[in-house]
C-alpha cells in the first residue's frame, strides 16, 4: 500500500473511532451524580464482612474470581516472557560490569529509601483489608523497591537479593495459596471463595476474614512476578549478546564494556 492510501485509511479509521467514542462518552451519566447502584450494594456487603476497605472487599471477597483471574494472567505473562526470552542458540551470556559509576547522592538516597520502600510495601500488602492498598499495589512497591539497588549501581547485590529459582517458587506459591483459600471456602461453606475465616472487628488488622489472607497471597505472587519479569528484561538487555561468527571479531564486545 502506498503512503497516501495508508494516510487516507488512518484518517477514516480515526474519524470513525472518534465519532463512536464521542457518542459513547456523551451518553455516560453526568459527573458527580447520586445514582450508584453497585457502590451502594458493594459498600453494604463490605460492612457485612467487617472489611473497612470496600475496594479490597470487592477485589478479594465479592469478586474474588476476577482477582484470581488477574493474578493468573500475571503469572501466565511471566511464564510467557520466560518462554520467549530464553537464550536462543545464537546468544551467549557475558559478564555484566558489576559496579557502574553512580553519583554519591544517588547512592545515599538508595541506601535511605531501599529499606523504607520495602517496609512500606510490606505495610501496604498487610493492611490491604483496612487501608487503601492491597496485594497488587504492595507487591509492585516491594518489587520496584528491590530494584532501587540497580539504580544505586549495586547490580551484584540485586542479583544476590533475588535468587530467581526461589522467586519462581514463591510466585507459584502465591497463586497456589490464593486457590487454597478459595478451596477452603468450598470445603467449609460449600462455595468457592466463601469468606469462611472469622471476620473480627472492622478496622482491626485481623478483620475481614479471607480478604487479608488473599491480599497477602496476591502480594507474594505479584512481588515475585515483577521481580522475575524485570530480571528477564534486564538479563536480555545487559547479559545476553549475539554470538559473533566463528573466527571473526566485530569489535562490539569491547565497545559494550
Amino acid at each position, binding site marked *: 500500500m502506498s503512503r497516501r492510501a495508508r494516510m487516507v485509511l488512518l484518517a477514516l479509521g480515526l474519524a470513525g473511532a472518534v465519532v463512536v467514542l464521542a457518542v459513547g462518552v456523551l451518553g455516560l451519566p453526568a459527573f458527580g451524580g447520586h445514582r450508584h447502584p453497585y457502590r451502594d450494594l458493594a459498600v453494604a456487603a463490605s460492612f457485612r464482612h467487617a472489611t473497612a476497605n470496600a475496594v479490597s472487599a470487592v477485589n478479594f471477597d465479592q469478586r474474588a474470581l476476577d482477582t484470581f483471574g488477574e493474578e493468573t494472567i500475571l503469572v501466565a505473562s511471566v511464564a510467557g516472557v520466560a518462554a520467549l526470552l530464553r537464550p*536462543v542458540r545464537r546468544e551467549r551470556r557475558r559478564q555484566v560490569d558489576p559496579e557502574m559509576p553512580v553519583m554519591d547522592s544517588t547512592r545515599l538516597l538508595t541506601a535511605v529509601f531501599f529499606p523504607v520502600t520495602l517496609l512500606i510495601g510490606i505495610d501496604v500488602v498487610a493492611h490491604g483489608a483496612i487501608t487503601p492498598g492491597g496485594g497488587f499495589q504492595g507487591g509492585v512497591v516491594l518489587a520496584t523497591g528491590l530494584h532501587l539497588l540497580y539504580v544505586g549501581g549495586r547490580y551484584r547485590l540485586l542479583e544476590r537479593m533475588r535468587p530467581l529459582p526461589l522467586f519462581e517458587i514463591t510466585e507459584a506459591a502465591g497463586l497456589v495459596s490464593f486457590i487454597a483459600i478459595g478451596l477452603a471456602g468450598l470445603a467449609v461453606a460449600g462455595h468457592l471463595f466463601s469468606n469462611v475465616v472469622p471476620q473480627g472487628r472492622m478496622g482491626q488488622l485481623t478483620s475481614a476474614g479471607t480478604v487479608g489472607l488473599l491480599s497477602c497471597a496476591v502480594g507474594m505472587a505479584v512481588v515475585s512476578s515483577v521481580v522475575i519479569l524485570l530480571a528477564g528484561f534486564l538479563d536480555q538487555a545487559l547479559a545476553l549478546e549475539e554470538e559473533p561468527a566463528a573466527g571473526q571479531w566485530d569489535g562490539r564486545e569491547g565497545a559494550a564494556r
Partner: protein
Amino acid sequence: MPSADTAGQLLPLLVIIPVLAAAVLVGVGQRLPGRLVGAGTMMVAVVVGGGGTAALIITGRRRIVSWLGDWRPGGSGTGVGIALQADQLSIGLALLAATLMIIALGFSWHYFRAPGSHFHALMLFFLAGMTGFALAGDIFTMFVFFEMMGVAAYALTGLKVEDPSAVQGAINFGIVNSVAAYLSLIGIGMVYAHTGELNLAELSRSLAGDHSTFVVIAFVLLSTGFLVKAAVVPFHFWLDDAHAVAPTPVCVLFSGVMVELGLYGVLRVYRIGFAATSVAAGIDRVLLVLGAATAVLAAVMCLLQRHLKRLLAYSTIAHMGMFLVALSVGDPESLAGIALFVLGHAAVKGALFLCAGILLDRFGSVDEFTLWGAGQRLRGWDGVGVRSIFLLAALGLAGLPPFAAGLGKSLAETAMTEAGAAWGPPFMIIISALTGGAVLRVWLRVAVGAGRKPEGIEAEGMSGDEELMEVDVGEDIPNRMIISAGALVVIGCALGLVPSIAARATVAADRFLDADGYVAAVLHGRIGYPPVAGPVPSGWDLHGVLLSCLTVAAACAVAALAVLRHRLPGGLRPPEVVRRPVRLLRRVHSGRVGDYVVWLLIGVGVTAAILAPA
C-alpha cells in the same frame, strides 16, 4: 431455591484445576522430569474433559449456575457477586477445548524439551482461560478470561523464538488483540456506568427496552475484542500471521475453538444482555454484511496461499464468515447447524493442521510447491495413513457425508431456506467448494504429485519454506502423531453419525437462545428448562446429502482446475479484471501491525454505522 447444588458448587473447579496445575509447573516444573510434566499435564486435561462431560450430561436436564462465594443477589435481583452458568452450548465449547487440548498434547508428546515446562504451563493457562470464558456469566469476568487465553496464546504463538517471524507473528497477534481488548474494556465501563451492573442476567433486565444509540455504541466497543478473536473481516489480519508461525498443536486449538469462542462471546452478550435493546434492530445486518465480506475475502485469500498453515488459517476465517452469515437468518435452527458445524470443523481442521505438522517435521517445509510429490516419499503404513487422513479431512471440510461439518452445514442451509433466504445454500456451497478445493489442491500436489511441478519457488516471501521444524522425528513418523490426527478424523465422522444429534443440537440452541430461562436460572434459581416446542430436524435427509455431494464435487473441480490449469488454453486463465483486485487484496495483507490496527479502527466505525438505528 436449591440450597445444595453440588454441580453448581463444583463447576468453578473446571477453571481452578488447570490453573493450580500450571502454578505447580511454573514453580517447580524445571526440576521435574519431562515425562512427569507431560503425563501430569495430560492428566489434568483429561480430568477437565471428564468434568466437562459430566457437566454436559447434567446440562441436558437443567442449567448449572454457580455463584462464587455464595454472593447470590438478594430480593431485588441485583447483586455484587460473580456467576458462572453452564448450558449445553457453553459447556459444550469448554468440553471441545479440553478435547482438542488432549489431542494437541498427545501429538506434541516430547515436544519442546528445551523450554522446560513453559509450554505445558502455558497450555494449561490457555485451557483455563477458554473454559472460564465459555462459562462466565458476567461481562467483566468474560473480559478477564478473554485476557487469560490471550496472554497464553501470544506466548504460545511465539514459542519458536529462534525464528524471527514467530516473534513477529506473536507481536502482531498481541498488539491487535490488546488494542481490541482496551476497546472492549471501555465498552464494559460504559455498560457499567450506564446500569451499575456487570452480570449478564441483570443486564438483560435493566437494559430491556433501552433504545438509545449509547447502548449500540457500548455493544460495539464491548464486542470489538470478541470480533477480533473471531477473525471477522476487517478484524482478521492477525490470524494468518499467528497460525503460520505457531506450533502446529497450538494451531489446532486456535482454529478449532479459540476463534469460535470469539463468536460465542458476541452471541452470548447479545442474546442475554442486549437482546431487548436497540442492538436487536441491526444485529442481523451486521452479521450478514461482516460475515459475507469475511467469507468471500477469506475464500479468495485461501486459494492464493501456498503456505499450508496460512491456507488452513484463511479457510478457518472463511468458515467464520459462513457461521456469521448463517446466524444472520433462521434462528434457532441455524444456530443448531452452526454448533454442529463448529464441532465438525474443529475435528477436520485440527486433523489437517496435524498433517501439516507431520509434513513440516518430516520434510522441513509446509510449502505446497516445495512439497510437490513429497507424500509419495512417505513409505509404508505411515505414508498411507497421512495421505488418507489428509484426504478424508479435506473432503470432510468440504462437507462430505457423514462428517459432522457437512451435517451442520446442511442443517444451516435448510434453516436459511426456510427463513426465506434462498441465496443461502448456493452461498454456503460456493464458499465451501472454494476453501475445500484449495485444501484438496494441496493434497493433489503433495500426496499424489498431480499436475506439473510448480514453478517460481523462489519468487515469494510468503512460501512455507522458511518455517522452522518443531521437533526432529527422524526417519519414522511417531505413531502418536498419526493416531492424534486419525482420531480427529474419526471423531469428525462419528459425530455426524450420532443418532438424533441434529435434534439434540436444536434443543441445545433453543436453550442457549432462551434469555428468560437464563435470567430465571441465574437470578432466581429456577434452573430447569421449559419444554421445547416446535419441530426438530431429523438429521441427514436426501436433499442434504445431495447438496453436500454437490459441494464436494465442486470442491474437487476447483482443485483439479487449479492443478491442471497449465493444460488449459490461454483464454481460460483469469483475466486482468480478476487479477487486479487480487493483487490489491494481497497488498492489503501487508504484515505490518500498524495497518492492522488501522483496519481495526475502521472496523469499529463500520460496525457501529451498520448497527446504529437509521
